[in-house]
């Protein structure tokens, strides 16, 4: 039994979906945005600190590879 659904999903399948999935599990529901969160100052300091840490350490890895390759 076909429905008017744009994806051509049968009425039986629609019923299974509506009875088995939570509303937020539907693909369509995930198109709605979740509100943005504001960072505290301490969180921003932590995130930037870890970003600098990562970049520095990757430079160290590159240095190790370079010295090993020589």
């Amino acid at each position, binding site marked *: 039994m076909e429905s008017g*659904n*744009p*994806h051509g*999903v049968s009425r039986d*399948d*629609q019923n*299974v*979906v*509506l*009875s*088995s*999935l*939570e*509303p*937020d*599990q*539907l*693909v*369509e*529901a*995930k*198109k*709605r*945005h*979740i*509100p*943005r*969160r504001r*960072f505290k100052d301490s*969180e921003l300091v*932590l*995130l930037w600190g*870890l*970003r600098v*840490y*990562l970049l*520095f*350490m*990757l430079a*160290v*890895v590159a*240095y*190790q*590879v370079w010295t*090993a*390759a020589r």
Partner: protein
Amino acid sequence: MGAGAQSGRQLRVLAAEDEVVVTHEDVDRAHDRARVTAARGGRGLRGRAWLLWLLIGPGILVMLGENDGPSMLSYAATGAKFGIGFFLPFVVLTFGMALVVQEMTVRLGAATHRGHAELIFERFGPFWGWFSMIDLGIGNFLTLITEFIAIRAGLGFFGVPPWAAVLVALAVLFSALLSHRYWTWERAVLAAAAFNLIFVPVALMAHPHWGAVGHAFITWKPLPGFNRDTVLIVLSDIGATVTPWMLFFQQSATVDKGLTTKDIRFGRIDTVLGAGLAAAAAVGAILATAPLFGRISAENFEAAQFAQALVPLIGRFGASLFALGMVEAGIVAAITISTSSAYAFGEVTQRPHSLNLPMTEGKSFYAVLGLCAVAAAGIVVIPGLPLVFVVLVVNVVAVLAMPPALVFLYMLVNDREIMGDLVSPLWASILSKGIVIVLTATGVLYGVSIIAPNIFAALGGK
């Protein structure tokens, strides 16, 4: 959000009066969920076992997937370089760390029904989201290359040429996708991942000294020397169990499987089972190569060379199993890691992203998955490339990228607006903070060992 997100009701995204648009992806997921709902009515041990069978998957896959090519090489190098001692309990401890971290992704996925990349972009914005994606993209691609190196080396033990080895791996990867059903894909990859336990019988063939094994687990001794090699192996073994792709994969797979807040307990059991099985395989790999301790130099050893070196000790059959284990480790990880990249790409670009998608509806998802794998496989067959360096650094890079990824995870899982009552309990928050500190400190120690090796010498190391 999910049923457990009591105080996050204002974020509920689908109002009852909205027109419901149902896709094929929804239908496939709903059929899987209908079986779970039916199984909940089952009684007795058999009923619970059936429900567990339906709900396991992401946890076991992520843990056995992370027992990948470079990880198994790292464990093999650990056994050959340090024998039976400190690293046996240490490796088990790293799986404990992975368990704490991965459990959070189960809760996040079940409570929000959103993938990890999607949540980072939505909650923290594209600026931090892209940083996270760049870390994931680089890490995943480097790791994928190493998976194909392991596959090439493992099959090389049987005389298979490199081009044929990567073609076999790609054929397995694409075969798993043919059903366009998450459930079938998951079961097929689980069956392949079970082969990771081949390292346990290989370890038994090496006839380990069980007294020494028991002593090592109880006392954590003998301790390794404090030097640059030890730091590198410590970092490498940690990178073999906790890496950013695991966070993204397990949360996305939890969502794709359709787990809800009612399933979190089973999600945890799934993750514990995965950690236990993966730890057994890791310890198996260490015990299998421990007889090589003091006999060979394990520097830059590739899989085939380990297998070759094991022939006199455990025979041709045992060495062949070891090589096949490396091939399996590489193939399963290539599948899970390329899937994690495809999930993340779909989540941030808001394109369809599910293993339930038919090819016509999931072109970009399958294209990213396939292209990542093909590109990594292509690099491995280019003659003369210094691939051993990639193997050397990939676990190190994974550990270094973990603290920023863990901070995002920590912030999300403690975000009451999206998690409601499912935020982490105090003990889990303390543990996760401790893991961030340990990982960062280990990274710093590694940096010091490279930049100022004299400090190690002054402390009695080399």
